[in-house]
């Protein structure tokens, strides 16, 4: 029967034990649901478990969140007799643990509760000596699980060695799960708050970044940045100092939170950078500075006199943030709590750095914009001067050339008497060279006028057929000299056009002249017709052709087809570019079709009637 009695006793114990467990679980569940913070929930848990087990010491390690699995000792304890365990507490709080070490380290690894019979004899218990010294023996620990992640570990110690109590460990697993839910809930709340914060800040920053892109004055933009900063952080006043272009002085450009009276002495104030104390230091070191009653400004960082007399900016709680954009220091954002004298928390400075960089971008953009404007204006002036110079220059060059060509022609026409054949030949070369020089000068002049916007069309009625004939009359000798056939196909019923007859003839002369110049055998053909209400003129040759790459370039100024066979042909390379521009001034288009070895076809389309507004 002892056996039976034993059973009964066991049953009674089990019942009591179960009831006690249920009480414990219930108390912890209530605490988990109602405790306002995780710390409080864990404290209740420590107290309840210690009360339930009669063990004098309970403590919490928190997972740091680091990938190493570092566990951080919390200042959360249940201590029946704090004085007795004082040494153990100190050592424990100074001992972070890693997976595998101590009770919590091993629980972290296995994610299961663990029991140690006597910690003073356990080789993997780093604070075993201290535990022994204060009389601690048995210990167990239980993970606080959030999903599969160990968020914290609760550890408990007894003053006596004890064998594992598996029922207790089971119940403790439940306790860990309960606390896990608290952690989860807390994180949700934190997360929500954080999200709300982030989204509020993002909204401000978004408004700022759009403001920075708006065509506002720099001062307006900086004011917006400061207004936004005022709404996000609890700082009484802000001011923005911009560094002058010579890097020598700070100029106050925007303020927020100042009364009008306070602002007055600050308006337009310039402080030499080296006299600016803490501001100079922050600028030099590209790092923010924060001062308050606990961390006062050292005397060597005071503003130097007379600027130290600026009472409005003398204060104890203040911060200085360098404004840096694309690596350039452009100024300083400063803020203070002069009136409230609250210290400015470091995370506020962190947040304000974002505002400072927005302000910096605004300042830098304004600087770049101004630089760009100045440079554009300089370039425009330089370009005008260049065009004017070229126009004057070519005009001056033409005057003596006029004399050379004039006298040469008079001599050749034997105004001054009979010219021997040998001299005639040489003078013919002088004349040829002079005419070439003249055409070069004319090209440069035309282009400079086009660039200077002084190239105007003299509109008259013209006959395209007449133009073609005029051009042919001019180039016939050249074509005959090279043995090239000149063919022309002009539709018989072309209407009269309106445009700059002389310039259109110049274009056609250029195209036909080029075709003859570059073609050694075969023919040059001009085709003129009406298509879709426009004149279409095509000049085709049986020359060497132009590669696709060269076709892209030949209409550019000073470019010519780069094949060596064309190198010796002479010319400025301006003719085609000018021809194209003349056609475009008429509202037309010019293009080329060619392939190496297949000849080239240059064509232009020209409105039949060009109106006065075109080309102005």
């Amino acid at each position, binding site marked *: 029967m002892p056996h039976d009695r034993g059973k009964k006793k066991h049953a009674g114990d089990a019942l009591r034990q179960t009831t006690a467990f249920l009480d414990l679980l219930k108390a912890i569940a209530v605490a988990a649901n109602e405790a306002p913070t995780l710390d409080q929930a864990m404290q209740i848990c420590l107290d309840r478990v210690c009360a339930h087990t009669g063990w004098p010491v309970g403590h919490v390690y928190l997972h740091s969140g680091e990938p190493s699995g570092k566990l951080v000792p919390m200042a959360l304890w249940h201590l029946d007799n704090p004085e007795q365990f004082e040494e153990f507490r100190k050592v424990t709080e100074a001992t972070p643990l890693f997976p595998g070490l101590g009770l919590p380290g091993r629980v972290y690894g296995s994610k299961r509760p663990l029991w140690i019979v006597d910690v003073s004899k356990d080789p993997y218990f780093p604070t075993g000596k201290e535990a022994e010294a204060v009389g601690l023996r048995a210990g167990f620990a239980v993970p606080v699980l959030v999903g599969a992640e160990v968020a914290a570990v609760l550890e408990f110690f007894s003053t006596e060695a004890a064998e594992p109590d598996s029922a207790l460990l089971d119940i403790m697993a439940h306790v860990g799960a309960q606390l896990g839910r608290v952690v989860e809930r807390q994180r949700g709340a934190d997360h929500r708050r954080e999200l709300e914060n982030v989204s509020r800040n993002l909204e401000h920053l978004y408004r700022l970044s759009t403001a920075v892109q708006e065509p506002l004055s720099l001062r307006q933009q900086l004011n917006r940045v400061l207004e936004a900063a005022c709404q996000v952080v609890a700082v009484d006043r802000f001011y923005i100092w911009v560094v002058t272009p010579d890097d020598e002085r700070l100029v106050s450009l925007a303020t927020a939170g100042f009364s009008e009276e306070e602002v007055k002495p600050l308006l337009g104030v310039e402080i030499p950078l080296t006299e600016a104390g803490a501001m100079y230091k922050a600028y030099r070191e590209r790092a923010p500075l924060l001062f308050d009653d606990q961390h006062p400004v050292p005397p060597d960082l005071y503003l130097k006199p007379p600027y130290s007399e600026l009472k409005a900016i003398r204060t104890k709680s203040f911060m200085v943030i360098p404004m840096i954009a694309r690596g350039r220091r452009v100024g300083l954002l400063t803020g203070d709590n002069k009136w409230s004298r609250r210290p400015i928390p470091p995370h506020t400075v962190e947040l304000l750095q974002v505002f400072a960089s927005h302000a910096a971008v605004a300042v830098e953009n304004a600087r770049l914009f101004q630089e760009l404007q100045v440079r554009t204006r300089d370039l425009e002036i330089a370009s005008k001067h260049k065009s004017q110079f070229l126009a004057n220059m070519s005009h001056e060059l*033409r005057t003596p050339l006029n004399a050379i*060509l*004039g*006298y040469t*022609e*008079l001599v050749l026409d034997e105004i001054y008497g009979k010219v021997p054949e040998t001299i005639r030949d040489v003078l013919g070369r002088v004349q040829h060279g002079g005419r070439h020089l003249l055409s070069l000068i004319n090209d440069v002049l035309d282009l400079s006028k086009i660039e200077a916007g*002084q190239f105007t069309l003299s509109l008259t009625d013209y006959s395209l057929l007449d133009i073609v004939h005029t051009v042919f009359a001019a180039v016939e000798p050249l074509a005959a000299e090279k043995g090239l056939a000149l063919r022309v196909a002009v539709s018989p019923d072309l209407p009269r056009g309106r445009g700059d007859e002389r310039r259109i003839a110049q274009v056609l002369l250029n195209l036909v002249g080029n075709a003859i110049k570059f073609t050694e055998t075969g023919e040059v053909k001009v085709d003129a017709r009406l298509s879709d209400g426009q004149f279409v003129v095509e000049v085709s040759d049986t020359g060497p052709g132009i590669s696709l790459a060269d076709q892209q370039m030949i209409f550019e100024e000073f470019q010519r087809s780069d094949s060596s066979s064309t190198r010796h042909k002479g010319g400025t390379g301006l003719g085609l570019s000018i021809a194209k521009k003349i056609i475009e001034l008429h509202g037309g288009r010019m293009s080329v079709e060619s392939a190496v070895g297949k000849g080239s076809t240059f064509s232009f389309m020209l409105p039949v009637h060009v109106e006065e507004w075109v080309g102005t």
Partner: protein
Amino acid sequence: MAKRILVIEDHEDNRRIMRDLLTSAGYELVEAVTGEDGVALAETQHPDLILMDIQLPGIDGYETTRRIKANPALRRIPIIAVTSYALSGDDAKAFEAGCDGYVAKPFSPRELLAKVREYVP
């Protein structure tokens, strides 16, 4: 009797080329270097044709033309503007001022002679 041509031109070489060209073609030449002198010579010499440079010291060719055309006694004398190609719109301005013809500079003597013959054969 040889036809008389007044050349108003400040540039010595241009004047000489015109002189050599036109005298050898049988014309009689009168020359002025400034617009004011040109007007005075036109009044005293009554030429059959005037070749007018436009860029002149003092009053320019347009103004000189206007003054000559303003004189009823001289109004019938044809004036050919010899203008620089460099200045666009010169031709239109020359006609506006009262010129009857137009030759672009630099001119070919042969072409100038052809133009002159249109007015004074």
